[in-house]
């Protein structure tokens, strides 16, 4: 696959290499750092992500919307005592909109968006199975844990279906219990027994079926698909770590 496709890179590298940039973003207090990193991550996704359809639209429109939402809500909800030294932009009755509040919101929004976009570099371009394969091969994770993870992932949709049916079944029996958090808690408590009984039985069956197919016979398994770790992965890793410095260098260059 082309060097320009993020899909061709090693999943472990894609998951781990953005972590320094995420930390830098999370610890930053300015607007510039998260903004630059968010733009870089988004550019990488647009160039190498091979995004299409709704995912593409969500990747482009999502972050600005998120930033706007957080800016406005921080602007409204930030404790005025913290920002009343800044400019008052608007006063409506008892409410004053402070520029400092908006700025805090904008910075927070940019930080959240940047971390999210950095995580999506792996998230939108990686197959979960390949990630686990790569973790087994390159991080020396025991394969039993990896495959237990696979099996667990297959449990999730099943539980969702079961829970839906149990909820219907209980409603049909006349369980109401009223509204409010206590009643809801009690209701969910009632779902727990059938859900857990079903889950335990299912888990038992899955593990029997896995052992019956030789799972755990040897210390290793045949890996049919090798997830490669190549020069390009090293380049990507170096780039993603170097990205942490870009906001600083760029602001220096731009004065």
């Amino acid at each position: 696959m082309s060097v320009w496709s993020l899909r061709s890179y090693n999943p472990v590298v894609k998951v781990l290499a953005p972590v320094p940039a995420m930390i830098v973003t999370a610890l930053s207090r300015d607007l510039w750092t998260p903004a630059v990193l968010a733009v870089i991550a988004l550019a990488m996704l647009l160039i190498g992500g091979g995004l299409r359809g709704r995912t593409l639209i969500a990747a482009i429109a999502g972050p600005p919307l998120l930033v706007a939402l957080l800016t406005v809500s921080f602007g409204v909800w930030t404790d005025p005592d913290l920002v009343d030294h800044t400019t008052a932009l608007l006063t409506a009755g008892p409410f004053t909109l402070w520029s400092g509040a908006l700025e805090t919101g904008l910075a927070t929004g940019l930080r959240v968006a940047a971390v999210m976009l950095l995580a999506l570099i792996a998230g939108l371009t990686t197959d979960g199975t390949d990630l686990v394969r790569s973790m087994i091969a390159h991080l020396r994770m025991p394969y039993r844990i990896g495959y237990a993870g696979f099996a667990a992932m297959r449990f999730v949709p099943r539980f969702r279906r079961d829970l839906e049916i149990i909820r219907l079944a209980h409603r049909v029996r006349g369980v109401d219990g009223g509204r409010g958090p206590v009643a809801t808690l009690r209701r969910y408590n009632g779902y727990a027994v059938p859900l857990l009984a079903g889950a335990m039985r299912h888990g038992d069956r899955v593990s029997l079926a896995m052992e019956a197919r030789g799972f755990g016979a040897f210390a290793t398994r045949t890996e049919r698909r090798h997830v490669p770790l190549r020069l390009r992965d090293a380049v990507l890793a170096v780039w993603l770590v170097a990205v942490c410095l870009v906001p600083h260098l760029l602001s220096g260059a731009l004065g």
Partner: protein
Amino acid sequence: MPILICMSDVLLRLSGVSVRHEMYDETGAVSHGTPRPRDVTAEVRAGEVVLLLGPSGCGKSTLTLTANGLIPHVVGARMDGTVTVAGVGTTTTTVPALARDVAMVFQDPDAQIVTATVLDEVCFGPENLLVPAPEVLARAEEALRRVGLWERRDDDPEHLSGGGRQRLAIACALALRTPVLVLDEPTANLDPAGVEEVYRILREIAAGRDRAVLLVEHNLDAAIGFVDRVLVLDADGHIAFDGPARAILTGHVDELLALGVWLPVATLAALRLRAAGITLDPLPLTPGELAAALDTTPALPAPRARAAADVAAETAIVVRDLTVHRGRTTVLHSVSLTVAAGEFVAVAGANGAGKTTLAQAIAGVVGARRGTVEVTGRAGFVFQNPEHQFLTNRVEDELAYGLRVLRRPQAEIDARVGALLDRLGLAEVREVHPFLLSGGQKRRLSVGAALVTRPTVLVLDEPTFGQDRERAAELLDLLDGLHADGTTVVVVSHDMHLVAEYATRLLVLAGGRVIADGVPSGVYADSAVLAAAGLQPPPLAQAARALTRHPGWHGVTRLADLPALEPTR
């Protein structure tokens, strides 16, 4: 007995095998139950297909788990005796190591899937055994082609039909290339189309004669065609019979009936005819044999006239122009129907045809647009899995719950619950936790919980799913009793034999539309409808329609239609 027995061709040998499951009392102390199976000695040879039969709870499934060491290694149970596979004792090795010699296919296709694609799934077993990668792929391709799933190798197993997933499980077993294949009720969770798919594969595997197959299956009508030998356990878990399938089934038919073993419908029909003075010899085991035997009989009495269904004039259910969307798909397309009070309606169709949605809409489980569904009186609904609807910690509280919701006086609650406990045969377990009941008891309790408020309409979603014939028949007898008392019954079911025996009306759905609606015998005569819905006519109807000499019998679909001395079902 020749002195020199060829030892090499015995692939699976059980000697004196007894299994006692672990049981826990309230304090958490472990004890062991009564042995099921008990002292079983048997052999399965290369190229042989052995069917394991026996009444519910005799230990059939348990016995299959000893074949690859899951008992005693993994499942909490104590095993006496020895099991050897290709000469190796199962207790001296491990389950994963035995996977080279024994492959298993279990009942629930969903519980056997680990990976995210069909191809990965088939490769999973050989990969565990460190088979080199090129050979893993070669084995996977061969196995997938054999079950007809090679074209779908990149799909998520979740997107296969139930029958497709079970064929995948069979491919996974084949890819291990074991000399022994063990299948535990592989079709119990499938719709009729899925059952047929799986049996087509099993027939081919059996014809290959390249491995030993041990099969547990309650659907004898499908299995009898390719089984060489039967091993019958009695209710105590002892071996009652072990021998060639035909000889045992025809030669010991009365003993088998007494043991509670379900026989092929063709055989049951012949027994009923025998009681009416028509002897078929040899006893037929398949619909084809029954038809052939009847055609050699020069004269047959007319089938019993069906008593006109006792249907009251008033309507119980009216469905008008009901359309249901789920997400972007339309599950039901403007369905309209009227059900009169006292009908016993079966709803059939392939998975995804909209059966459950229609049943839930009728019972008011899911909301339908106002005015589209009207039910006279109260409707009760019984879910497919009884555990999903249990709410309390005691059987009697479970029955009382519905009445407490309606705030009935305590005396009335006690009286109704007491009567219902007796009727359902649950009086002895009235204080037990519902989750600790047996499968059949759970099913009866779930029906009871819906019955306690005396609904005029009782709707059941696949009440016989995953249950053996015995329990299914027990439940249907219960429903038949309710129907006789005037309750309108609507049941979603795949089991054409049970539908044929009990329902007064059959509704066939396909793609969210009603494609047939009428008396079951009429629907079974319409092969286009059956094909469209992926249904097979029940075995007796197949035999009756194949008759050339007795056209008067073509409409026979139920055992109750056969001439008999006494008017019993």
